[in-house]
């Protein structure tokens, strides 16, 4: 791993109205890493980003950049640039001038006699760097277009170019893809990753979209209620969630109560299942995560568990099948069609079972009894947006 660049130590943020949005955040960011802060609206991820950007001073704790404390360093003196939510491009300037904005500002440097002097970049260098950056974001030929004439995706690229042209050590991205449609979002994910690798700098991305986080990041930080829930690679986060919140937020999960009868043996619904987890107390109550794609449907007689199908939805590649086991509803993703009301059995391989310690989130997630409503909510973009707005207001 490369060296550490930013560290937050015991950072807390409480707003004037007494709302605490961040609680004792301890986290570090490595150089050249693509890191994503992931969490639902209002979890404090944007506030964390604003603290790194210098737009907010934390109520407690320290922020270090390259080993130096920067709590009170104003944004314009930080080697950090931001791609803002909804881009915040300057409407009175064209594409070229937007990108050149940061370069045209004289920098303070220490002169030969130790005095601070203002240094202006020569015109030719500004021009070269602006053109180079417009090429990086594939906007060559758009120099003299007005901002209002650009599409959302193009504005997004201008915002990225405007930030990157200053050669920051860190690029902060505040929900950069939130305003784009789904197709464009996928393209931009690739694009961002490509740019990050080409320039070799740190990207810190904020999003509530778990798919985006998994697709782009080297490291994912899952947050909820102002607290870091888990830090890890996308694979770690998906395969080894630390608690019910993470398991539920990243992908689909069936989360059930279990008891560790011994190392590598967990009991669910009074049946013992072999698993790969160890190191728990004997007979310790635990949360058990079973991903919908890890469940095999078998004839009823051969199943480890038996249940009744209550709903089937065709999703293209697979069927989303809801199965009732003793009153607890599971989501199973299967390519086998099982009609509603049929009785089926299931089998779970040991590596399909993940055991977690009990947490304050136990029992809150992972039941698909209210599946349809939950699904509608996820699929309804207006609802998500409304929530976003509220979160913005809170920030």
């Amino acid at each position, binding site marked *: 791993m490369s060296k550490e660049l930013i560290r937050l130590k015991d950072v807390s943020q409480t707003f004037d109205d007494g709302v605490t949005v961040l609680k004792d955040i301890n986290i570090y960011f490595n150089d050249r890493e693509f890191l994503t802060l992931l969490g639902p609206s209002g979890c404090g991820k944007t506030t964390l980003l604003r603290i790194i950007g*210098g737009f907010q001073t934390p109520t407690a704790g320290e922020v270090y950049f390259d080993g130096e404390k920067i709590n009170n360093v104003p944004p*314009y003196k930080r080697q950090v640039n*931001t791609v803002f939510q909804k881009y*915040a491009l*300057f*409407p009175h300037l064209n594409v070229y001038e937007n990108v050149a*904005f*940061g370069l045209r*500002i004289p920098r303070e440097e220490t002169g030969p006699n130790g005095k601070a002097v203002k240094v202006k970049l020569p015109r030719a260098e500004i021009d070269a760097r602006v053109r180079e950056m417009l090429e990086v974001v594939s906007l060559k030929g758009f120099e003299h277009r007005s901002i209002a004439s650009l599409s959302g995706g193009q504005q997004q690229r201008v915002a990225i170019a*405007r930030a990157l042209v200053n050669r920051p050590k860190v690029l902060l991205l505040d929900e950069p893809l939130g305003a784009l449609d789904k197709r464009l979002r996928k393209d931009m994910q690739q694009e961002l990753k490509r740019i990050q690798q080409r320039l070799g700098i740190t990207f810190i991305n904020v999003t509530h979209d778990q798919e985006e986080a998994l697709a782009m990041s080297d490291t994912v930080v899952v947050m909820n209620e102002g607290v870091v829930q888990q830090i890890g690679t996308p694979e770690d986060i998906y395969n080894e969630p630390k608690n019910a919140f993470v398991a539920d937020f990243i992908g689909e999960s069936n989360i059930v109560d279990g008891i560790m009868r011994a190392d590598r043996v967990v009991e669910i619904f009074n049946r013992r299942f072999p698993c790969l987890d160890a190191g728990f107390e004997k007979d310790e109550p635990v949360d058990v995560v079973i991903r919908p794609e890890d469940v095999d449907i078998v004839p009823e007689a051969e199943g480890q568990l038996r249940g009744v199908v209550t709903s089937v939805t065709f999703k293209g590649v697979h069927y989303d099948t809801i199965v009732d086991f003793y009153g607890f509803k599971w989501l199973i993703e299967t390519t086998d069609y099982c009609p509603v009301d049929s009785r089926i059995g299931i089998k779970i391989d040991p590596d399909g079972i993940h055991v977690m310690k009990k947490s304050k989130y136990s029992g809150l997630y992972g039941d698909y009894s209210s599946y349809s409503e939950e699904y509608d909510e996820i699929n309804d973009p207006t609802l998500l947006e409304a929530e976003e707005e509220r979160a913005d207001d809170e920030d």
Partner: protein
Amino acid sequence: MMRTKRGWFAFPYMIWMALFVVIPIVIMLVYSLTVPVETAEGEVLRGSLENFTGMTQYLSVFGRSFWLALIATVICLAIGYPVAYLMSREGPGFQRVVMALIMLPMWMNFLLRTYSWMAILENNGLLNQLFQKLGVIALYNRLTGSDIDHFQMIRTSGAVVLGMVYNYLPFMILPIYTVLTKLDRRLIEAAEDLGANASTVFRRVTLPLSVSGVVSGVTMVFVPAVSTFALSRLLGGGTQMMLGDLIENQFLGGAYNPHLGAAISMVMMVIVVICMLVMNHFGDGEGEAVML
């Protein structure tokens, strides 16, 4: 879409405009291009440009009017912009107080406000009495070796400008304030993020994005200031004749000549419209630039 459907909603306004704007302008145009001539059948109108050629003797009045209006506008801008800027940045409490202070005088009649300024600026008015009491006048006499018992404030061009600034300042502050409050705060953060300190943010983002407000404000101050008339008589004491007074004089005063008055009004209108066109050009044509 809306154009054809409810077009008739605009009829009352169009009739109003025709009756009270278009027709009067046409009448004025006719007046300005004619002179009365005595003939056997009585007085008839004859087409002539002599109203316009004869206007040259009043060049100094034109000059003074535009000059004083310009000064007043500049002062209004110099005071109004910072006030509007502060208001837009401070909390709602501060905004309410300042807004009340700005609006309060506007609820009183224009003449009343001007009369109270007369009382203040009079040779033995409030301000001179205060200066007397404080010994400012004595100090001034000692420093300059002069011997005055009051400062001459009323009946000067300065008093006229003061009156204009006092009366028209709100019209400068309000449009600028409106534009500044609508300014997206994230643009300012974006500029800071890109390395701009407070003064650079102001110069390169806030100011350019508030130009439309400035244009509106300048228009709303300059246009009425140019044609102002009671102010110059009350505070200027007749020594500072302005276009408004000149025109009034042609219609109601001793120099009764409505044809000349109409011609002066037409010229003033044309000059004002030209000024505004130039101004609006600076404002990018967009924004809420007000023409009339």
